[in-house]
């Protein structure tokens, strides 16, 4: 075994102090395999060493939470003996290197996190951030990422029902690909990754192990082989077909009483899966690498342990049930191998070729994992900028046409048409149809509502308010379809945590999220942190992506964007102050990226959300949309486009600024379509509930009219809305 030099240690991303700690734990110098194990277990990705102290501040509990952070995915009760299992994860860097495979394997990974807990995956969402549309790579990255997400999700047969896509030059060198998966399981059949039962077999299932994505740091150590370059592709290739078989086989086995613990092999593959199972269960595990199904010849123990080959799972079975399990995996033509046992030694002992190649104490490694409270520079609190009507060189109609065709607001049809969002035949409201996707819980009258949200320009200006806003917008999008918001998953994408400014952004965003989650009773049950999203010292805007899940008890109440008829009244819920600071209007129309984002009043947010949900439950709301980017005018335009029916918006006398009234992004607001008969009741109940609500528009015709301005035909509006992607992607 080669000698461990300071260079080897550094190449494994470990500091000299961490190296010393390893020596103290082992009572000796680690060998290379052990160094590899520590390197991945103590990596930022696996250990959350920079984020842990902050993540503790997020609320994680509620009566309906069955399992919070710490397992493969979060679990919440959705009634009728069922639970929803969900999580979001990033695959940013791989998607930048190889957009198709990077995004595809991102989807594969998040699916495994969900079905490993015994849930059948029922929906996928994707939150994407690209660079400037004019940047030469953007088109290629966008095409590849979308094809990869579709290529994987469509093939496994899980509908991709929603997501988010925005563009900003600050993502030119660091795109974000965050994928969320939601599954449904029986409450009494949730599986955890906690090894138990000394002597129980440890079983490997799925695809064979190759030299995929082996920890980049190790490339530096020359002693592996001369042709290391050729032998070690760092890009993993996904095989959705095998994943589909793996889902079916695992769920079939889970219906039997064979499994003690199960864990997917994600980052750091066999190492982290076996380690985490043992750590959670307080046991030891013995592995025999000679029994691992391999795709290539001559793989070293180091490579086998650290391979990130996709579509693999590790299980602990009840002793004596191997044959039954093997039969199921044989039926699905998947590899199945007993590769080890659970022990009571508390150590991970790995053998290869008859000798022990690694022997490390599990609990000590987990407990001694470094935790850093890194220096934080609190972000400055920006001041709002004001924008007077006189400073706007365009008409409101021109501004609206500009906004609906802007990269961040244009129709995403080009994207979601490449996703099968209907497979499984339970998608009630798909992409482009509502503020949140609505997926029926198969065989019941219930439905889940799903959304992803974050407004990076707010987070950049003020990470605390931005973090709050991301949670509040998710909450609002769920309420807007009539769902009761239950819980949140997140994916916190930031720059280099070793820089105090970045760490300050992170801490503030987490604080903002925590405050909103607490106020809205909307706990975080799973999540993921992605640091080091920066190139040449330029970080992405802070992007704490939030994934929200809500529950509708009556699927028939699910409410979309589209009016179903003319002569409906549109009621605006919530009060606007014409907040244009940090708005999309300011950026797209006036070319100014500045000022404080709109503050979120969490008490109002909650009150308004509850009111909207109650009105929807009473069957009074024919269509609903929350107000977000682009404010009232854009929300109304989107509703008109979704329904093919026009509307006339009445601008009240005496508003301080027309542009602020039309395009301001004050938070906590909704637009509800109601019949003239229902409107008085709804308005009276609003008053009683302390909710500001007023009628602002009436549906009808085939144009959108802003106040006494000229009509904007829906055809023109649509051409602008659809034009951006058509131009960008079809030349």
């Amino acid at each position, binding site marked *: 075994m080669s000698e461990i030099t300071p260079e080897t240690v550094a190449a494994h991303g470990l500091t000299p102090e961490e190296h010393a700690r390893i020596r103290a734990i082992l009572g000796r110098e680690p060998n290379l395999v052990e160094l590899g194990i520590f390197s991945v277990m103590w990596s930022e990705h696996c250990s959350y060493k920079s984020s842990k102290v902050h993540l503790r501040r997020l609320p994680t509990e509620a009566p309906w939470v069955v399992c919070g952070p710490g397992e493969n995915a979060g679990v919440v009760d959705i009634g009728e003996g069922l639970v929803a299992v969900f999580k979001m994860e990033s695959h940013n860097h791989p998607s930048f290197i190889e957009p198709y495979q990077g995004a595809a394997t991102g989807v594969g990974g998040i699916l495994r996190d969900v079905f490993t807990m015994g849930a059948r995956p029922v929906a996928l969402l994707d939150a994407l951030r690209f660079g400037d549309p004019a940047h030469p790579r953007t088109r290629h990255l966008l095409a590849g990422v979308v094809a990869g997400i579709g290529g994987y999700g469509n093939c496994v047969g899980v509908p991709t029902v929603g997501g988010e896509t925005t563009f900003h030059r600050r993502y030119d060198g660091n795109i974000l690909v965050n994928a969320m998966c939601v599954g449904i399981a029986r409450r009494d059949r949730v599986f955890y990754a906690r090894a138990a039962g000394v002597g129980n077999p440890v079983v490997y299932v799925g695809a064979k192990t190759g030299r995929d994505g082996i920890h980049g740091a190790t490339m530096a150590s020359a002693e592996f082989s001369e042709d290391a370059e050729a032998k070690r592709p760092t890009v993993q290739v996904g095989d959705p077909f095998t994943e*589909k078989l793996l889902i079916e086989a695992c769920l079939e086995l889970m219906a039997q009483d064979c499994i003690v613990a199960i864990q997917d092999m994600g980052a750091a593959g066999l190492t982290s899966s076996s380690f985490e199972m043992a750590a959670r269960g307080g046991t030891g595990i013995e592995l025999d690498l000679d029994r691992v199904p391999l795709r290539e010849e001559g793989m070293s123990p180091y490579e086998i342990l650290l391979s990130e080959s996709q579509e693999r799972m590790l299980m602990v079975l009840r002793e004596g049930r191997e044959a039954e399990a093997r039969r199921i995996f044989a039926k699905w033509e998947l590899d199945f191998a007993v590769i080890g046992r659970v022990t009571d030694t508390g150590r991970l002992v790995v053998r290869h070729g008859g000798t022990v190649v690694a022997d490390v104490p599990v609990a000590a490694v987990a407990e001694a994992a470094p935790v850093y409270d890194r220096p934080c520079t609190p972000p400055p609190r920006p001041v709002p900028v004001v924008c007077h009507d006189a400073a706007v060189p365009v008409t409101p109609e021109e501004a609206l046409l500009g906004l609906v065709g802007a990269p961040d607001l244009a129709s995403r049809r080009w994207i979601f048409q490449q*996703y*099968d969002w*209907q497979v499984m035949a339970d*998608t009630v409201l798909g992409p482009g149809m509502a503020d949140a996707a609505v997926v029926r819980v198969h065989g019941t009258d219930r439905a889940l509502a799903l959304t992803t949200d974050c407004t990076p320009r707010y987070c950049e200006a003020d990470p605390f308010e931005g973090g709050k806003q991301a949670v509040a917008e998710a909450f609002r999008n769920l309420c807007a379809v009539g769902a009761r918001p239950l819980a949140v998953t997140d994916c916190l994408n930031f720059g280099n945590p070793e820089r105090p400014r970045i760490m300050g952004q992170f801490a503030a965003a987490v604080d903002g999220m925590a405050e909103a989650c607490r106020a809205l009773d909307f706990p975080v049950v799973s999540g993921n942190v992605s640091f080091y999203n920066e190139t040449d010292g330029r970080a992405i805007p802070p992007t704490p992506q939030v994934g929200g899940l809500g529950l509708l008890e009556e699927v028939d109440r699910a409410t979309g964007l589209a009016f179903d008829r003319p002569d409906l009244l549109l009621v605006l819920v919530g009060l606007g102050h014409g907040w244009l600071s940090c708005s999309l209007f300011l950026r797209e129309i006036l070319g100014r990226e500045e000022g404080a984002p709109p503050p979120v009043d969490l008490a109002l947010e909650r009150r308004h959300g509850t009111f909207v949900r109650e009105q929807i439950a009473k069957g009074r709301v024919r269509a609903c949309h929350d107000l977000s980017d682009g404010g009232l005018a854009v929300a109304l335009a989107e509703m008109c486009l979704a329904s093919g029916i026009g509307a006339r918006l009445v601008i009240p006398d005496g508003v301080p600024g027309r542009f602020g009234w039309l395009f301001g992004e004050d938070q906590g607001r909704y637009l509800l379509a109601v019949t003239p008969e229902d409107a008085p009741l709804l308005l009276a109940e609003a008053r009683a509930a302390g909710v500001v609500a007023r009628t602002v528009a009436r549906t009808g015709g085939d144009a959108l009219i802003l106040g006494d301005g000229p009509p904007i035909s829906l055809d023109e509006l649509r051409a602008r809305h659809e034009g951006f992607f058509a131009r960008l992607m079809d030349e």
Partner: protein
Amino acid sequence: MRAAVVTFPGSNCDRDLAVAMERVFGRPVRRLWHGETELPADLDLVGLPGGFTYGDYLRPGAIAARSPIVREIVRFARRGGLVLGICNGFQILTEAGLLPGALVRNRRLLFVCRSVRLRVETTDSPFTRAFPQGAEITVPVAHHDGNYLADAGTLARLEDEGRIAFRYLDNPNGSARDIAGILGEGRNVLGMMPHPERVCDPRLGGTDGVPLFRSLLEAVAGGGS
């Protein structure tokens, strides 16, 4: 109506198809595994569902078309049994030689999932008899390889024999003559790219697929096509 739906490795609309059939037929649908070497003796209808059998590797439907059960389905069809192939099921039927032509990559090369308008071109089949003549319906497509092609002679014969069951009004994939679905020579086999099973439940945005399944029910109750 005694119907069955086959599951191959990689099928993913098998449940959807069975649910839609059960909804319209009002009775349970058998589920068959691709490895089975015999069909149940008393079947009226076999459904080949959508999905990505064998990951669409080699050619969509190619590997599944060589399964033991497909040999039996070919025999069943030759005896006059009803066979419905949707999306990947259509691809399997062409690969198995039960239907002429082939389905290749969409002209724009992208996967396409959206609703399309179709015209029912013939009501003279056990799959379409419950539609009004010339009916226009809205049915979703979701595929990467739905671009139907066949040689000129085959296309002419399909037209002459009235075997084009459905035509796109807004062709999403470049199919020759806007073909969305075709009948076999005996009119007892239908392959189509759009997914009628996705529009059998008003909650999912439409019921335009129901007449297709009702046609089958009538055909079987009426003792043949």
